[in-house]
Each structure stands twice: as structure tokens, then as C-alpha cells.
């Protein structure tokens, strides 16, 4: 029977299946971090269970770690306890851990791909909703809660109800200055934050195939912002070339076997999706969010919308609340909105290509006096690579701050936070109320828009420079 890509991967991982029960799915890779794992390890200890497959498990420290003075003990004792707990748990249960200061430490979704342990056709989970990032490789990857983390640690499986499938066809060619971030923000604005609930999204079409692996990761990363637990892209030559030279890539005969399997990983021509939508890439513009959920976005050339124009009462109420929280007035051109902070980083846009793109714009220029620019590489390895290319100098010479790797201001768990009413242009993934610090206001943008905004001090695209 014809299958979609997601259905093929699902079928290849079914351990057991029975009528009126969830399928029991095998998990190929379990990524761990300090925030969502301590209670799961506690559960194992209470039940006297080991980690079933430490060799399919890997941990890193990212959410709660400082990005300054990483050679010093973590200053906040509660944060320190959480990180120390991860270290103790990994030691006790034999789990590989990349700690702060290690050259492979970084945001869990940056680390997996750069080590080459993220490969096509795998099932990948992590106690983090942005696990969908790994879908860029044609893997079925999704975020789980702590109960499920414990379940995977104990059994290397998860009982799951099969999701529906949705095709998102992005056809055409992106204009200069329009990026993968703008594609996904436009998709979320179109289908809404609940549009993907119950679905696995498959991003398809010429504009997706033209993206680099890092661009594809940005798209898949924000699937959860459209409500979908997972989003994926069929692997192709771009994928294979990216994986080939990574440390954990299959070698020799294993590579040949892997490649021939990976080449079967595409949606069959006559397979049927439960839902399909189409986006015209030719028409896309740099995008920015104006509200407090990622679906509240518009092309940067637009004005702040008027809630009175929205017919749905729930959406209208949400828009009114969002404008109040964001301190914005309907009708204001988005490009006139001044920001205080630029955050360049996160599992969405903290990879080397993101830093290169921003540095290209900032090279030889100064950021506006009114803004601070925080550049946080997605991993220690990205940081080292950027330094080898001199990108750190570009950011520092422009007046920015060059930090160590971690989630940082994306979720405001470590000391990198907005103050109340501070406004950020952020390359991260969530503009929720208080996400980047209590009372802070977030506009989600691409690295290009972030860099241009840093120079002008108001929301801007590179074409405004």
C-alpha cells in the first residue's frame, strides 16, 4: 500500500500493535537535558530500573546554563543543583553527557545533527518540544514530557496513537532576503497555532528542496508552533552529503546499506495525506510577529493589525490582549517599532549559517546606540567554527556581545532575560507573554532581519539598509 514518509517511518518502528491500543514504537535516539529529566531518573531509581539503552541515549546541558563565566560554578544554587543532578544521573546510569565547557556541549537539537547521530528514517525523542528540528533529516522526531522520558529510558519505546498526516507544499523561489524562518512563520500565520494538532507535517515542494540542511532544520523546528508534534522533510542528496562526514555517520558497508534504505524514505507518488496546503514561495516576504503567539505574524512591510477587523471573537480578544501586552497600537507600521534587544541564537537560528548570514550584514557596521545585541551560538562547536571564521570579531566590532552556547534568552531560564517592557527582535521560536523574561516583549524574526534591526534600531530588513 502507498505510504507517506511519516507512515513509512512509523511502520518500520512498530514493536507491537493491537486493535484499540496505541502502537508501541521503538525509539532510535533519546536526547536528554537537565530540565525535563531529573524526575524521570528518580522514577527509574524508585522502580529499580536501569536505562535500557544508554548507547541510544545522549545528554547535554543547555536550557539552564549560563552563557557567561562558564568556567565558574553556576551562580544560581537552584540552577546549579539541576545541572549537578543531570551530571550525577548520567554517571549513575551510564549516559553519555556533554557538559558545559565540553566542545560538544550545546543546545540538544544542534548537538545531535552536528555529531551525525541524527540520521534519516530514525525515531528521535527528547523532553523538549523543538525535537521536531531533527525532522529535517527525514526522521520522525518529536517532543515528549517527563513521564515519557522515563518510559523511554526504561523501555526504549513509547506507546503512541498514530497521527494524521498533512502535506505543506512550498513551491517557487524565495526572493533575496527571504529565508527559511520566513517560510515557517508564514506557514504558522496561515494555519494557526492549532492548525497542526494531531498531524505530522511533511514540508515539500521546490522551495523546501532548495534549502540547506540548516534551513530545513529551522522550518521543522517550529512545527510545534503550528501545533504539530513533528514535521519532516524527505531526505535527498543535500541530506546525505550533510550526514556523510559527521563523526557518527555510518562507515563503509554500513554507509551503503544506510544510503539504500534512506533512498526509500519519501512519500509514495500515489499516497494520500489527510490534509494538504500550499504556500507560494515567490510571494513570501521577510516576516515578523506582532503578537504573543507565533501565529500572530505578518510581512514586515505591514502595519500592526486592528483587532476590530478580526471576525472570530476568540481571535479578536486574543489580538486585543496581545496588542496591550506588546504595547502596540493598531495601524502602526511594523518597521517603525523600536526594539531594545536583538537576540541571535536558539535551536531555531543558532547554527553557523545563521551566524554567517547575520555577520554578512553587520560586517563593518555598528549597531544602533539604543540596542544591545546578544549573539549566542547554538553549540560550543558552532562557537569555535564562528571564531575560526572571524565572525565573533564582526559581532564584537559592531558592538554586540559574544556568548557561550545554550538556550539562553530563547526561554529566559538562565540570567539572559528581558526586563519588563523591554522589546526584542529575536531569532528564537516563541513570542509568548514573558517567554524571554517577565513582562518582556518579543518579535520573532529571521537572522537577516535581526541583523538589519540591530543596525537601524527599528524592525528592518536588509533591504532597508
Amino acid at each position, binding site marked *: 500500500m502507498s505510504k507517506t514518509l511519516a507512515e513509512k517511518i512509523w511502520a518500520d518502528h512498530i514493536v507491537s500493535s493491537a486493535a484499540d491500543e496505541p502502537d508501541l514504537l*521503538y525509539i532510535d535516539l533519546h536526547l536528554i537535558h537537565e530540565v525535563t529529566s531529573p524526575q524521570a531518573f528518580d522514577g527509574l531509581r524508585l522502580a529499580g530500573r536501569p536505562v*535500557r539503552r544508554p548507547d541510544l541515549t545522549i545528554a547535554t546541558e543547555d536550557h539552564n546554563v549560563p552563557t557567561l563565566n562558564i568556567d565558574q560554578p553556576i551562580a544560581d544554587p*537552584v540552577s546549579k543543583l539541576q545541572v549537578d543532578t543531570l551530571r550525577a544521573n548520567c554517571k549513575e546510569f551510564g549516559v553519555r553527557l556533554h557538559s558545559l565547557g565540553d566542545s560538544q556541549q550545546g543546545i540538544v537539537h544542534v548537538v545531535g545533527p552536528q555529531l*551525525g547521530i541524527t540520521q534519516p528514517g530514525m525515531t528521535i525523542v527528547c523532553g523538549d518540544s523543538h525535537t521536531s528540528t531533527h525532522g529535517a533529516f527525514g526522521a520522525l522526531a518529536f517532543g515528549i514530557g517527563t513521564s515519557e522520558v522515563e518510559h523511554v529510558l526504561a523501555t526504549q519505546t513509547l506507546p503512541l496513537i498514530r497521527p494524521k498526516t498533512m502535506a505543506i507544499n512550498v513551491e517557487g523561489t524565495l526572493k533575496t532576503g527571504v529565508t527559511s524562518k520566513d517560510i515557517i512563520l508564514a506557514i504558522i500565520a496561515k494555519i494557526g497555532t492549532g492548525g497542526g494538532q494531531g498531524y505530522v507535517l511533511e514540508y515539500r515542494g521546490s522551495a523546501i528542496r532548495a534549502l540547506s540542511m540548516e534551513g530545513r532544520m529551522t522550518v521543522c523546528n517550529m512545527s510545534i508552533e503550528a501545533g504539530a508534534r513533528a514535521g519532516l522533510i524527505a531526505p535527498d542528496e543535500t541530506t546525505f552529503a550533510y550526514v556523510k562526514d559527521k563523526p557518527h555517520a555510518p562507515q563503509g558497508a554500513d554507509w551503503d*546499506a544506510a544510503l539504500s534504505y534512506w533512498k526509500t524514505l519519501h512519500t509514495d507518488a500515489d499516497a494520500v495525506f489527510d490534509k494538504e496546503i500550499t504556500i507560494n514561495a515567490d510571494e513570501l516576504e521577510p516576516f515578523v510577529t506582532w503578537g504573543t*503567539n507565533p501565529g500572530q505574524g505578518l510581512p514586515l512591510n505591514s502595519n500592526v493589525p486592528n483587532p476590530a477587523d478580526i471576525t472570530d471573537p476568540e481571535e479578536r480578544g486574543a489580538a486585543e490582549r496581545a496588542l496591550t501586552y506588546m504595547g502596540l497600537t493598531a495601524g502602526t507600521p511594523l518597521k517603525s517599532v523600536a526594539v531594545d534587544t536583538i537576540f541571535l541564537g536558539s535551536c531555531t537560528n543558532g547554527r553557523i549559517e545563521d551566524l554567517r548570514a547575520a555577520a554578512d550584514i553587520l560586517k563593518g557596521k555598528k549597531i544602533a546606540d539604543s540596542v544591545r545585541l546578544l549573539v549566542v551560538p547554538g553549540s560550543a562547536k558552532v562557537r569555535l567554527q564562528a571564531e575560526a571564521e572571524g565572525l565573533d570579531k564582526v559581532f564584537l566590532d559592531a558592538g554586540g556581545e559574544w556568548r557561550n552556547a545554550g538556550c539562553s534568552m530563547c*526561554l529566559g531560564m538562565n540570567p539572559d532575560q528581558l526586563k519588563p517592557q523591554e522589546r526584542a527582535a529575536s531569532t528564537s521560536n516563541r513570542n509568548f507573554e514573558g517567554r524571554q523574561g517577565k513582562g518582556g516583549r518579543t518579535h520573532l524574526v529571521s537572522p537577516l532581519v535581526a541583523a538589519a534591526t540591530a543596525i537601524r534600531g527599528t524592525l528592518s530588513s536588509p533591504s532597508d539598509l
Partner: protein
Amino acid sequence: MDKFVTHTGTAIPLRRSNVDTDQIIPAVYLKRVTKSGFEDGLFSAWRSDPEFVLNKPVYNGATILVAGPDFGTGSSREHAVWALQNYGFKVVLSSRFADIFRGNSQKAGLLTVILPQAAIEEIWQMIESDPQISITVDLEAKNVRIGSKIHAFQIDDYTRWRLMEGLDDIGLTMKKIEEVSAFEGKRADFKPKTLPALQ
């Protein structure tokens, strides 16, 4: 996990849509390494507002949260479920839940019930006109009863059975562990391993 068959209590109307898990509990409250004590962070940004529904004394002791659509979007933090449970909630009603939040709630024993938005609106109005009105959420009969109204809801039979029996998912999977071993025996050799560490 405690068994959930039926629950009767009073409710709080939360007239907001898209209440994401950062609103339910912000990241700065996620540093604890236990499953308790998260009630302090529940809706923390809104708790300083005396007009926020949770702060209204008429709703003291409520155990059922009646929320707007798309409740629990965003982060996968199960701390959001624990915060609601630590505060005393047993049930959340909404017309739409985010997938991960709903999954987490079903693992942790917080019942999430989906009702049409029109029913949610009606329940909101009934609570607002009588904050002490009693609501019964009956998982066995698959309905929510308030006043003379009965709202039927759907839930898959497997999850319902597991919640009603208070069964731990891991224990259930352990009964199939030989099938897991058999599956592992057939996995392709080219699949990556994290150990030994290659860099």
C-alpha cells in the same frame, strides 16, 4: 497514578485562548528536581493581578479548570501538568488542547476533557452566575454534568481504561519487553549508537 473514575467539584472559568505552557508555568520555575511545589509558579505572571480569576475568593477550592481553546500550547514541560495538579486541579475542560500537553496530562493522571466551544461558553456562563455550582466529570459515563445539563465527551478507550485503573504505562510496556528485545534483534546495524563517543 491514582485511579480516576469520577470527580465532582467547583470550577474556575479561564476565559483565554492559547494559554501556552509558558503562561501555565514560566521557565524560571522549572528548576526544581522534584514533581512537587510547582503551584507557586502556576499562572505566575497573572497571579499578581487581583482581578485574575484564580485570585477571586469565590473560586477558592475549585478543582476543575474550564479553559479557552488551544490550552497548553508550546513547550513540552510536564511541569505545567504538575503545577495544575499541585494547585489542586483534577480536570481541565477545553475545546482544544495542544497534543503534547494532553499526552502529558494523560500520563500524569490529570483528566483533560474536550467539549465543543459552545458547551465551554455555556459552562463559563453557568459558573460565572453561580461560582459554587457543582460539576461532575464522569469518565466512566464519558460526560460532564452541570446543573441540568449533560455534555457527552469522547476519549479513546485505551486511555480511559488506563486512567480508570490508574495504570502506569511503563508497567504495561514491561509486559511486552520480550517483543522489544525481538525488535532490537532485527534492527539494522547501520543505525547510530551514542557509545562509544565519536567526535
